[in-house]
């Protein structure tokens, strides 16, 4: 199918800045490798508190990456990730105490993931089919979080209601083999492996045909649809997958933190997730991960030092990102590194 089209061209119309082929952007993976290496080294050099708390922050990172999938790639902002995180945590908490042995644990994780994916999928499908998008969709996702919190509070027989629910550290075993999360160092490495796994999977997904089309939908939904893509279906799949990842992170978070309460679905937490991703850089999965880790670590320090001003500071930082710093920390870093590389 090759042929030559003999057309003369005005030089003016051909005057475009000749951009070189970008070196296949692996800067993100490079930086991620550094981050994972540092995290891997923490238990050998850090103190026991860090080994205890960092897995929870890493799981926040996984949660943030689930938002990067829909927001960064697909352009779908969601304030509902907290609710799916909550479903994951409660499902594990409820089923691991009611069904004995490793079956209860696996069942808890599986049910949480399946339930989140199904709720997200069903809801998103009808909304996207009806062409609900943009800020209207954001409002619905806010409602998802609120409803999740209300159910968690009112179904107190199952969830412990407003007081929350204690979850003991579980064992993830298959016929005797597996990991016992009761040990802080074991669970640290387990959560690190999980985080790396989710990162690698999402990076692969973003390069796949599905990921490219999702970006196309973000860039111009009408064009993507008129090229033959069932846009509503693809957005639904992305949203559902993102809910599943959030639920998985929530389940492990539940057993890591040992406690889950309805506050995970409240507006403050849902907003925090969006903040992590916005400040870290929504265009990169690493941005979500770094945003969640950095803000959690810093807010832990500053919350005790300047409790009144920390939230305000965070708010100002968020405004700055929204107004003039859209790429976020990681996005800007990657751009700067790539520019230096291109100049060589």
């Amino acid at each position, binding site marked *: *199918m*090759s*042929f030559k*089209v*003999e*057309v*003369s*061209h*005005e030089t*003016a*119309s*051909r*005057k*475009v*800045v*000749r*951009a*070189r*082929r*970008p070196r296949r952007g692996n800067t993100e993976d490079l930086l991620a490798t550094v981050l994972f290496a540092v995290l891997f080294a923490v238990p050998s050099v850090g103190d026991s508190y860090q080994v205890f708390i960092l897995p929870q922050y890493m799981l926040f990172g996984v949660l943030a990456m689930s938002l990067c999938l829909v927001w960064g790639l697909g352009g779908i902002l969601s304030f509902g990730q907290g609710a799916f995180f909550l479903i994951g945590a409660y499902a594990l908490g409820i089923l691991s105490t009611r069904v004995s042995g490793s079956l209860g644990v696996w069942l808890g994780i599986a049910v949480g993931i399946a339930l989140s994916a199904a709720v997200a999928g069903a809801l998103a499908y009808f909304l996207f089919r009806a062409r609900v998008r943009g800020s209207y969709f954001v409002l619905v996702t806010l409602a998802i979080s609120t409803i999740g919190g209300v159910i968690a509070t009112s179904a107190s027989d199952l969830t412990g209601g407003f007081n929350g629910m204690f979850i003991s550290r579980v064992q993830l075993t298959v016929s005797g083999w597996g990991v016992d999360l009761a040990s802080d160092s074991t669970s640290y490495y387990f959560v690190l492996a999980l985080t790396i796994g989710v990162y690698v999977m999402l990076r692969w997904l973003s390069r796949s*045909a599905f990921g*490219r*089309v999702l*970006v*196309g939908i973000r*860039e*111009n939904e*009408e*064009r*993507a*649809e*008129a*090229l*033959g*893509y*069932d*846009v509503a279906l693809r957005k639904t799949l992305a949203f559902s997958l993102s809910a599943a990842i959030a639920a998985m992170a929530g389940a492990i978070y539940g057993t890591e933190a040992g406690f889950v309460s309805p506050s995970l679905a409240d507006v403050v937490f849902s907003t925090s997730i969006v903040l992590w991703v916005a400040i870290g850089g929504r265009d990169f999965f690493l941005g979500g991960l770094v945003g969640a880790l950095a803000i959690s670590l810093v807010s832990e320090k500053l919350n005790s030092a300047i409790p009144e001003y920390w939230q305000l500071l965070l708010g100002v930082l968020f405004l700055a990102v929204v107004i003039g710093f859209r790429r976020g920390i990681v996005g800007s870093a990657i751009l700067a590194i790539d520019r230096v590389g291109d100049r060589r």
Partner: protein
Amino acid sequence: MSGPLLDVRALSKHFGGVQAATDVHLSVDAGSITSVIGPNGAGKSTLMAMLSGHSIPDSGNVFYEGRDVTKWPAHRRASAGVVRKFQRPAYFPGLSVVENLEIGVVAAGIRGGRAMRARAREVADIVQLDDARYVTAGSLPHGRTQWLEIGLLLACRARVMLLDEPTAGMTRQETADTATLIHQLVHDLEMAVVVVEHDIDFVRSLDSQVTVLHLGQVIATGSMSDVEQDAQTRLVYLGE
């Protein structure tokens, strides 16, 4: 294959009290160009939308390859091969030209990095964006975004291209080049092209079958010279 590739029978559509299309017939063969002209408000865009699946007619049918596609949504029609180019160029502004084309290539069912890149490159050559492959599409000059969108249609293996004012905002030279490009696509790829245009000189240079619409009705069909002889067309369209 027997019969036309795209066969439009007795399409009618009204919006409130406005009759946007009344009993419109159109028959499009593979390897042919059909131009639809008419003054503002003649129903050209409505017809285009009914061909692409963006609008469902009140009555009448659209057949593609003998199948009734009247009620198929736009994405289904596009993946079957009837693809529309929008009046305002629609592409993926934040992505590079080659990334744009790759999204089209994926729609044609081509998978795998190497095959995808090769095909995107091929299409970039055809629409003469080979020198701008790694340029962000949003920074291309207007005329070239029109060609980029035609490239997207090529990439997804359109068999019927619906071009809604493809030369809008183009220089005279670009317009002439576009006519040449369309002729090449029709000739080399046996593509069927339906063009809605305002620019009479452009339509003349396409040397195609012409359908004249006025107030939602077909008032003349034939070659451009036939149509220009038609008294009613001269009256409503050419203003004589």
